[in-house]
């Protein structure tokens, strides 16, 4: 019962905040609602027995990516009314709506398994998997982050 209420509350906050990100005229307010959406997604991860991933979501998405986006908003001016749509927005709405309809139709025709995993801490099993089975992607991710850091500095520095 608590799980049902929690799921619907978190789902409404997530999707509602995402809609406000798209629809609000003020870019800074949109960024703040993006932060709220990320936090609600972290709550959903807790409900899905992904406790470590919820902490990573707060640390990385809220603490790094959203802060970076707000820095970008502050450095590129005209904050209060620059979240507008271009004139072909009905086509975008149609494409996104068509995608959603097709996806929901496909999802509703499948008999999904319904037994959730028993709740247990996931940090140790994730570490085991990440450093044994997924070691190569882990090392490649570190190289990717190095490339991203160097690239961002080179692209954004003054001439």
């Amino acid at each position, binding site marked *: 019962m608590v*799980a049902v209420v929690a799921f619907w509350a978190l789902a409404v906050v997530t999707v509602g905040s995402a809609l406000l*990100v798209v629809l609000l005229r003020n870019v800074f307010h949109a960024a703040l609602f993006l932060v709220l959406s990320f936090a609600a997604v972290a709550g959903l991860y807790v409900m899905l027995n992904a406790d470590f991933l919820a902490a990573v979501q707060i640390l990385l998405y809220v603490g790094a990516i959203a802060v970076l986006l707000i820095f970008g908003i502050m450095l590129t001016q005209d904050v209060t009314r*620059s979240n507008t749509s271009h004139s072909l927005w009905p086509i975008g709405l149609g494409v996104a709506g068509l995608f959603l309809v097709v996806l929901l139709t496909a999802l509703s025709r499948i008999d999904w398994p319904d037994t959730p995993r028993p709740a247990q801490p*996931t940090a140790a099993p994730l570490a085991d998997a990440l450093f044994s089975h997924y070691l190569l992607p882990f090392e490649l991710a570190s190289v990717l982050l190095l*490339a991203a850091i160097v690239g*961002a500095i080179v692209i954004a520095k003054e001439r």
Partner: protein
Amino acid sequence: MPGLFHYLVLSGVLFAVGLFGALTKRNLIVILMCVEIMLNGVNIALVAFSNFSRAAALTGQVFAMFVITVAAAEAAVGLALILAVYRSRDTVDVGRIDLMKW
């Protein structure tokens, strides 16, 4: 009890909202924010599948962690690009960054 279907519908709706924003908005930073919304939707689907599958491995959560890592790297480089564009064209409106338009 919310089952796998509920989480997948939520993931799809979130992805569709991000897709609508990424296709429709004129501000470069808002487009980047909508891409992050789409990536969050995908992550919810991955973690939901990991939770409701009968396998013992946490593959979905590992995949979601890599998606978060790549999203962070992509946001950093994307914002560097936006700053460079703003410095050169003095705008972040995609309607006015159209040098390559025919």
